[in-house]
């Protein structure tokens, strides 16, 4: 299968004189796959995601996104840990935000936003203000906003990290369903190894001595049942402990 995200020997840092945070990152992510990035706090997981999103430039190396050009969509969309809704926009308008600036007539824009809200089971919530939503609902709106631009690649930066356990589990199941239904490529940052094993079909472990790099690449069968799940969790945990130097 073709790679949709291609990173070659990428080095990432903040400031010209500061040492790089990540170095030698070479990675090919296949279309439709669900890849989790795990690693200790501060290792550069979110930074790597921002480089793929185009929000931060790589210091060296190449970052290629192979997504077909279409004027009415954005190839990459980001879901943040804190939902990051604009409090002055109602839910519907928050979801439409990414569509503004694209050549889409207003009624079609509204329909795409409504359809994305249906996908995250929030139909009927378009007229509410963000403050009227629970934490889980706000995060769903963040996901709907990303889905509305019909991206090939969904970048998710610890999207369920701030939620309670039950809401987190519900949203994990919804994300699995959305991934199966839409076939989008998902790059998912998490510090929760069980979450990574539950959702992803590939798990990348960032770590090692500074600058960090990809130290392990685990193939994975998503799911949270049985012996295989626990064995995989232990394997990733072991890999994390072996490379914990941050």
């Amino acid at each position, binding site marked *: 299968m073709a790679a949709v995200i291609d990173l070659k020997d990428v080095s990432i840092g903040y400031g010209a004189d500061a040492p790089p945070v990540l170095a030698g990152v070479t990675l090919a992510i296949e279309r439709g796959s669900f890849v989790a990035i795990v690693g200790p706090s501060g290792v550069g997981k979110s930074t790597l995601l921002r480089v793929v999103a185009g*929000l931060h430039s790589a210091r060296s190396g190449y970052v290629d996104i192979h997504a077909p050009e279409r004027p009415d969509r954005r190839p990459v*969309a980001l879901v943040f840990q804190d939902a*990051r809704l604009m409090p*002055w*926009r109602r839910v519907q308008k928050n979801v439409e*935000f990414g569509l*503004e600036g694209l050549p889409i007539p207003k009624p079609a824009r509204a329909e795409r936003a409504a359809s994305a809200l249906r996908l995250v089971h929030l139909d009927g919530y378009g007229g509410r203000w963000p*403050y009227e939503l629970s934490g889980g609902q706000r995060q769903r709106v963040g996901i709907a906003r990303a889905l509305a631009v019909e991206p090939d690649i969904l970048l998710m930066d610890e999207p369920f990290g701030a939620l309670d356990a039950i809401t987190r589990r519900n949203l994990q199941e919804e994300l699995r369903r959305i991934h199966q239904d839409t076939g989008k490529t998902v790059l998912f940052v998490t510090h929760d190894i069980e979450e990574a094993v539950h959702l992803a079909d590939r798990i990348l472990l960032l770590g090692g001595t500074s600058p960090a790099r990809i130290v392990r690449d685990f193939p994975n069968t998503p799911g949270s049942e049985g012996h295989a799940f626990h064995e995989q969790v232990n394997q990733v945990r072991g890999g994390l402990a072996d490379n914990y130097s941050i």
Partner: protein
Amino acid sequence: MTPQRAVLLSALGVAVFLGLWEAMARSGFVPAGLLPSPSAVPPAFLAEVKRGMWQAMVLSSLSHYLKGLVIGSLLGIAFGAAAALWPVWDALQAWVVRMLRPIPSIAWIPFAIIWFGVSEQAASFLIALTVFWINYFASYAAVQGIDKDLIELGEAFGQGGLIPRVFKIILPAAMPGILSGLRAGLGQGWMTVVAAELFGITGVGMRMQDASGMLATNIVVLYMVTIAVLYGVSDFIFMRVQGRVLAWRR
């Protein structure tokens, strides 16, 4: 406390205040020329309205006020927001601001008269100056204080250009602070109206000055009350509008 009880208590407070004032004026403890009784104000109001004086003075003041308020607020918001957005511009004008800010608007009266004459433009200029600084600093703080993550959100969803960044993210996010500045300017603007008109520009300030020269203190009080009522009405309307604009706040 219930809202009804709060209104009743406020009304009681005003009644006690007016009662004490009336009693003091009638007791002869203070000469009537120095402090008119509240009951002397309504007849003065009727007389002024009958002569058409009250309407003319209020309309004239409102005209200075609104022109100064609009110009000063718009410029203050634009300059304050620009300084908060662009560090180079901020640095360039920082010391100019420090030098000009402490000069009270009324200190500009000689220049206002030299530049514009004893005219409506001079009054509007002084009001605009007062309102400008209030809005400048309110907008500066509001724009500097916005959540920078929202800027990143704009960039992530293709809204990182200057126009969408300013109009879709920065101004809406800074709106509560900007509106606070507008509201403060609304009150301060009235103070400058009176100060500017004391120098002979037609309006309530000029009428107060004339009346005080004739020891017609009931007319002075009438126009003081007029300003209070005009401010109260404008502030009430502003709060209603603000409530709608900021309906998104909890």
